[in-house]
């Protein structure tokens, strides 16, 4: 077993080990493993990539080539709430580029940036398939259709309330 040599400590190890175990021996498992790890950690830190490379006996360079190819993967941390503006055609035709710009101004974030407190990040996404409600803002799995920048305060307010409720 590679457990002793693993570079992950304690808790992280405990969270990632079951994921690789589930896929051990399966062909073509790299992508689902990375997806699940990103699902747990929010992004893919270098440590996690080394862990996967060691556990699945795949060169680290190959893991990196996969990670850099697919836009779903992020090697830098993202905000707890990830605001993504759809850049699909239907949304573009309905002004999503302007929405992105305005949200950036309001939140003081460039696309790809995380707020200093780690709470919010702003990004773009490919079409999420809700084109009939363009332009679309996505936060986690939730979609907000026909979105305009002036609705953002209200939305952030309800996110804050939800966070509070979760804490209780």
């Amino acid at each position, binding site marked *: 077993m590679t457990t002793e040599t693993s570079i992950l400590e304690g808790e992280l190890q405990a969270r990632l080990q079951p994921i690789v175990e589930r896929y051990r021996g399966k062909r073509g498992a790299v992508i689902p493993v990375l997806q699940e790890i990103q699902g747990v950690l929010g992004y893919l830190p270098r440590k996690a990539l080394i862990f996967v490379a060691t556990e699945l006996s795949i060169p680290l360079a190959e893991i990196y080539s996969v990670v850099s190819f697919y836009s779903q993967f992020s090697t830098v941390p993202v905000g707890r709430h990830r605001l993504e503006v759809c850049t699909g055609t239907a949304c573009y035709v*309905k*002004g999503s580029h302007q929405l992105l710009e305005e949200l950036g101004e309001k939140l003081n974030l460039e696309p790809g940036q995380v707020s200093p407190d780690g709470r919010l990040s702003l990004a773009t996404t490919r079409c999420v398939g809700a084109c009939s*409600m363009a332009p679309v803002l996505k936060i986690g799995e939730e979609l907000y259709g026909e979105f305009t920048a002036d609705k953002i305060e209200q939305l952030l307010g309800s996110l804050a309330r939800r966070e509070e409720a979760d804490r209780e």
Partner: protein
Amino acid sequence: MFSKRRSEEMAPVDTLWEELKHAHIASPAERWILLCGGLPCSSTSCCEVKKATQDELDKHRLSLEIKEIGCIGDCSEGPTIIVYPEGVIYRKLKPDLAREIIREHVKAGNIVERLLRGDPEPREELRRREKMPFYRRQSRLVLRNCEVVKPDIEDYMKHRGYSALAYVLSQMTPEQVIKQVKLSGLRGRGGGGFPTGLKWEHMLGSPGEEKYVICNGDEGDPGAFMDRNLLEGDPHSVLEGMIIAGYATGAGQGFIYVRAEYPLAVRRSMQAIEQARENNLLGEDILQTGFSFDVELRTGAGAFVCGEETALISSLQGSRGDPEPRPPFPVQSGLWNLPTLINNVETLANIPIILLCGADSFAKIGTAGSRGTKVFALAGKVRHTGLVEVPFGTTLREIIYKIGGGIPGDKTFKAAQTGGPSGGCLGEQHLDLPLDYDSLLDIGSMIGSGGLIIMDEDTCMVDIARYYLDFTQDESCGKCTPCRVGTKRLLEILTRITHGEGQEDDLERLEYWGRLIKNTALCGLGRSAANPVLSTLRYFKSEYVAHIRDHYCPAGVCERLNRPRINQEICRACGLCARICEAAAISGSKETGYRIDPALCTACQRCLEECPFEAITGGEKVHA
């Protein structure tokens, strides 16, 4: 569980179609409520509406079934409730309105007229789904279940679900199945339009100790959502088609590849697979016929090129989604170098219909070269957006104006984009063209997967071409030089044109690079990447010329070229603007009216502010 019927006993498509169309009003005694649970609705205020509906039912001790189905396709109007048996449709609901409907309609039996929306059609037409133009003019064959049946195996089976599979497994040989699919004339709905039966035949004849079936649910065309909708609303149809494909081609393992952006589709497909396993419709010895087949679900990771079949296979194997040259085709050597059949979600969803209704009946729908129906994802500047299923050969005019209700506001239609980044833009002259695989190829576009984005006068066609090239340039995997470098060159030229820095011979350059990539790129992404440029150049050339020669964007989209314009209908030719213009860009007379020369105008906005009649607009950031 299943009755084994012979093929001559099967209902012909006309009858079956009638039956399917009326399935939801078949039992008038039954009252039930249908709630649209497709992604757009379920992500807005649908949860609240559902909760309110259930609360109100409980309050009045009404024990009705609420069926949460897939998307009914009328997404711009959600959340939606349909009350049966009358089939009355209530749209754009809020929780308190839902409560009122339960009290007034469900309990007291009075249709709540006030809440029937959708003017300007006459009220009578609005009540029932099958009377509304948006639905009435469609032929919902593939989408039939998305409106009536829960995405759940029990409900699916009540609506003939898996009877095509049971029939095939018990009564037909693989060769007979393939013969039916060939006779039906079905062509792939994923974009290429390859005859499905022929592909299956090649696959059956292709030797391999193991064989695979892949359902392509990558749906990368930005602006398309047919496959998402099918996987969310009727995953069992797709699965049934897949199992039949496995049987007909000798495969034992299948994969559904769904893009990561569709979490609900992933969950519903996963659930469908599990339910099918529980019912012995997947796994060993399916329905005790000796046939074994299982399906695994994989999600994409955000790469457009992975919709291309060889790239998809690379991705399933756990690598970067790099495409491979063909031949060998996947049916010869695909996943793990074994014979692999790849079909699109919608293609597979057509299979049970063909086997239920008979290939002859199916082949009666559509045009000579394109049989059956096509689901289009209607979006953009059109009144009713959503999914539209029509026979091949339907015209754009029918889809945009009769079904889609026309262009909103007082705007005029400018273009329809079909086929996404691989397709092209059609103009007004194409409104009456019967749409099918071949007619669209003839005019430099393609039907693609079915994305249909409508653009009005406020859309700049040069900017749209730039938008698509920005997309393909970003999504190009970089493996072959023509695509990697060519898309970059095209994007550079288009960007400078939209910035007002275009050169006289840029149009020739666009043509040159466009043809070069088309003829030399490795995979379909590159070979079709120039289509948005070439088609807009062909049908909207004057817009390119205006950008280059006059430094003017007619739609007022390109910010750096956006100059004020005088609306001649409002202008009273007082001449004030011409007098105050510091750049001397405005000229004219009382008789001829006044015009702004965009080449001289500095967009200082003074005329716009001073005009007493507010006849001058533009010059500020205008967005669609």
